[in-house]
């Protein structure tokens, strides 16, 4: 092969790699009045299912979903009808919608108006699975047997989960297994398990809220370098925040009115809770535990408000609960409430 041919082949290969981005990212539309086909997605020919639009999308594209109800459209308990999302039961994700490429999937009108429902018969409602740099934004996800949203698989670039509501899943609201995932401005309400579960390295959670979940609000288990900030756990049946066998930093969080501890540290690893508000917890067991340290070493817990100006103590403040050799570094305590104001989720 001549040198000229080699150069020509190399240039063609390069062009083939770059062609999608050079062509410009597209927006593929989905609507309840759409119709699926291998070419659907234009604004005047939207797809009917999110799954079809994702299949038609290329790297860098956006799938824009109109208001409506997606999943088991006729609610007959299967995903086999023409308007149903083709649930991927046989694939690794076992989910209603899988995002497996670097695309953005977002709703046009926000989470309150756009529902994806697994109806309690599919393991996960949505899975970002082996994607790098994908974004999932602005949906209510409901009815997942194990979770509402799973972010899993190896990834080269962080995935992002933004502005969603995980509501009444049988299991957890959000499960984060992929490293470096960003989780911002989401809500987890009334899920059977915990609101947010992190089991990865480098997760960043900002501006989220977990309320009324059957277990904990936020759980970091086996996680490394997890950071949770400006987030609220209120009225969960279990703990507000749990850090178990993990390294996790909680900063500017509010944990109020949870049934068990406000914050629970246990097992190996390390944790911090700083500049936060911790009060009104432990009603389910009359424990009054604001922070429960069972890690066997000191935990930094400075700058927190415990429900009264002079720090932890009996009701109406929250108290500290300590295992053997597990003190808290408390001082200085904050004399007034640390307030966290969340942005509205559409």
């Amino acid at each position: 092969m001549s040198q000229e041919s080699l150069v020509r082949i190399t240039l063609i290969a390069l062009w083939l790699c770059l062609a999608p981005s050079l062509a410009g990212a597209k927006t593929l539309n989905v609507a309840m009045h759409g119709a699926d086909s291998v070419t659907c997605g234009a604004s005047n020919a939207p797809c009917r299912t999110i799954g079809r639009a994702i299949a038609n999308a290329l790297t860098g594209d956006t799938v824009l979903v109109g208001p409506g109800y997606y999943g088991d459209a006729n609610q007959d308990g299967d995903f086999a009808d023409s308007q149903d999302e083709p649930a991927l039961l046989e694939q690794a994700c076992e989910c209603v919608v899988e995002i497996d490429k670097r695309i953005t999937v977002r709703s046009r009108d926000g989470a309150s108006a756009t529902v994806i429902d697994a109806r309690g018969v599919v393991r996960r409602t949505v899975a970002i699975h082996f994607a790098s740099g994908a974004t999932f934004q602005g949906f209510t996800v409901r009815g997942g047997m194990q979770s509402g949203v799973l972010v899993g698989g190896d990834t080269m670039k962080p995935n992002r989960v933004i502005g969603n509501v995980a509501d009444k899943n049988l299991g957890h609201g959000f499960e984060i297994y992929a490293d470096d995932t960003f989780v911002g401005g989401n809500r987890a309400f009334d899920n059977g398990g915990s609101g947010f579960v992190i089991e990865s390295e480098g997760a960043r959670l900002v501006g989220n809220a977990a309320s009324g979940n059957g277990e904990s609000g936020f759980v970091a288990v086996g996680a490394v370098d997890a950071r949770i900030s400006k987030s609220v756990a209120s009225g969960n049946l279990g703990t507000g925040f749990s850090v178990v066998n993990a390294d996790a930093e909680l900063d500017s969080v509010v944990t109020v009115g949870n049934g068990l501890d406000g914050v629970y540290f246990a097992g190996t690893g390390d944790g911090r809770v700083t500049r936060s508000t911790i009060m009104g917890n432990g009603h389910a067991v009359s424990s009054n535990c604001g922070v429960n340290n069972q890690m066997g070493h000191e935990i930094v817990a400075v700058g927190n408000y415990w429900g009264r100006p002079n720090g932890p103590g009996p009701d109406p403040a929250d108290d500290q609960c300590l295992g053997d050799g597990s003190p808290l570094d408390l001082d200085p305590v904050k004399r007034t409430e640390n307030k966290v104001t969340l942005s509205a989720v559409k």
Partner: protein
Amino acid sequence: MKLTLFAALAALCVSHSVAARTLNVAMNGEDGPDCGDTREPCRTITVAIANADGGDTVEVGPGLYGDLNRDGDMNDVYEEGALGLGACVCAVDVNKRVTVRSRDGADVTIIEAGPATRGVRINANGATLGATHGGFTITGATAGVWTPAGIEDVRVVGNTVRGATSDGFFTEGGVRYEANRAIRNGGMGFNSNLAEVTVQDCIAQSNAASGFYFSQSDSRVRKSLALANGSFGFFTLQGADDFSGIASLANQGGVYYDESSDPLRGSSVFGNGIANASNCGIGTNVSGLSMPGNFWGAATGPGAEPADAQCPGSADIALTPARKTEVKVVPKATR
């Protein structure tokens, strides 16, 4: 003379502003006959209301109120039944002309009512529950927010009712609903009976019965969305109900006029009647109705899938000329 008049007006203004107070409620509060100051908040909403006068505001911090340990009663320490549930049988009874709102919004301020208890009764003329970013989430109730007959000038703003066993919001009085959400309730999302009601920026989603139901009411509904409800998105019975700029999507049926005839205007109705294969966008038992100018899911107007059509058995309605493009209805977001 002018100076005297000015002084009198100024004194009137000052005395008015002094009269209206804000009473605080927080999870680190303690109930008492004088609680409510920022440094001494009340622990329960009920006691703050008892301490308030007409015109006052009760502002509630984030957390859980009501049945705190979820044992099904309201009589444990710090629970809202401190003064007895009374005839109301509700977690919170707003029985004065006060505003009761949350400081940080509905997503983080929960009233857990318990399985045998209503959520909130609003039983005073001119009372307000919530604010645009200052509402409550009411969960676990038999009915979420209830306004009895004879109560007028009530505002209900920025609240969410989830998982009530019957209706999310029920009124027989005069209510203005703004930016509320009724989600996954066992009855209607919003149920108005013999009432004069305004609905703006509200969403009824995944309720077992109709999203918005009006019976013999005089209602005005704007910029509101009914999604995936188990009966009609909007249903009006023998009423004078004015629906404009609404969206009814993925319900068992879109809109139904039962002995009612006010027109539907500037709205989107599509994706309904899938579960029962009826494709039912709009239906009525009244002859001769005319409702042009709405979007039915196709540029060509009502018809077969993917558009919605008239419901099976409906009296004929003149729906053309129909709107060719979707009316986008995005209710105001709250936190």
